[in-house]
């Protein structure tokens, strides 16, 4: 039986839908355990007083990246069947800029705001409401101004990895991310020591 199970036919649509709450509960549990339901803690990332966001995010990214790579290598997981998000250079740059400023102002991101709201944080509820408002605003704007829609679809490169774009092998891309993350962890330790 090769993975991904729902893509290879080992599990049907019910198996896919059943996975959603199970994976979600585990996801929310990990975020809360790390303290990521607490907005001031997240904001500390941008004032270099608390680097939990970086540490959690990049140790998670590294674990999943290396796990997926090696499961693919030993033939357990067919990585080409795992959906790779498409690249739209300019919209994703603007999206990142807007999202990053919102992240700093709110102190929470969409996933962590759910954890915050569920544990009783009123600011988490505010972020949830704002997110819904932002989606409505975007939909309205792209309905009224064709330019927004046009920009949204611009600079499309399809499903592509940065390794492919730079002419590197997948293994080399993995090595680069691993080295950068490990360097970041060492740096994070130093920054936090300097603050004590």
């Amino acid at each position, binding site marked *: 039986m090769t993975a991904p*199970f729902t893509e290879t036919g080992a*599990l049907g649509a019910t198996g*896919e*839908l059943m996975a*959603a709450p199970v*994976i*979600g*509960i*585990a*996801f*929310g*549990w*990990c*975020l*809360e*355990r790390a303290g990521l*339901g607490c907005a*001031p803690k997240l904001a500390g990332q*941008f*004032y270099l007083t608390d*680097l*939990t966001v970086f540490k*959690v*995010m990049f140790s*998670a990214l590294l*674990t999943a*990246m290396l*796990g997926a790579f090696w499961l693919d290598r030993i033939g357990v997981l067919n990585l080409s069947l*795992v959906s790779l*998000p498409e*690249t739209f250079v300019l*919209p*994703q*740059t603007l*999206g990142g800029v807007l999202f990053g*400023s*919102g*992240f*700093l*102002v*709110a102190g929470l991101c*969409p*996933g962590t*705001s759910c*954890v*915050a709201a569920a*544990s*009783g944080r*009123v600011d988490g509820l505010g*972020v*949830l409401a704002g*997110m819904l408002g*932002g989606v409505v605003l*975007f939909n309205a704007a792209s309905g009224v101004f064709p330019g927004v829609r046009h920009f*949204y679809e611009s600079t499309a490169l399809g*499903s592509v*990895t940065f390794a492919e774009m730079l002419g590197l092998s997948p293994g080399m891309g*993995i090595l680069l*991310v691993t080295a950068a993350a490990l360097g970041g*962890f060492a740096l994070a330790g130093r920054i936090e020591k300097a603050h004590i």
Partner: protein
Amino acid sequence: MITTTKPYSDPYLAGIGLGLVLLAAFVWVGRGLGASGAFSSVVEAVSTRSATPLGDWLVLELLGVAAGGYLSARRAGRTGVVLERGPRVFGSGRILAAVSGGVLMGVGAKFARGCTSGQALSGGALLSAGSWIFIAACFATGYLVAPVARRLWR
């Protein structure tokens, strides 16, 4: 009020746990984790009055996130109605910041086709070019805005 709350887990251990959850999503359903997509689905379902958003994978997953967050917080004694804020921002100011930050992230996540979960974490782990563009733009902007918005958090 005396409450006993457990300290947070080690960030690297929690991160490895989160990474294994993401890996399980890759193996089980061939997709990553997500959050902002669920907000889109809810708006879509409400505005078209077509179907209930409860059949949507991301909506079900995000309800799970809320449940998991609640269970973990309750076990650690961290539940309670609280407004988390910086030391110099009070009630309505913090709510205003939370809502406006949410609006910016809502619009940003639409342009980016995802947020910190779907793009940065899941797409990043698959080395997606656009995900890494998003990570760079998001964190660079966060650090640029931080000194300007210092009053919110310091």
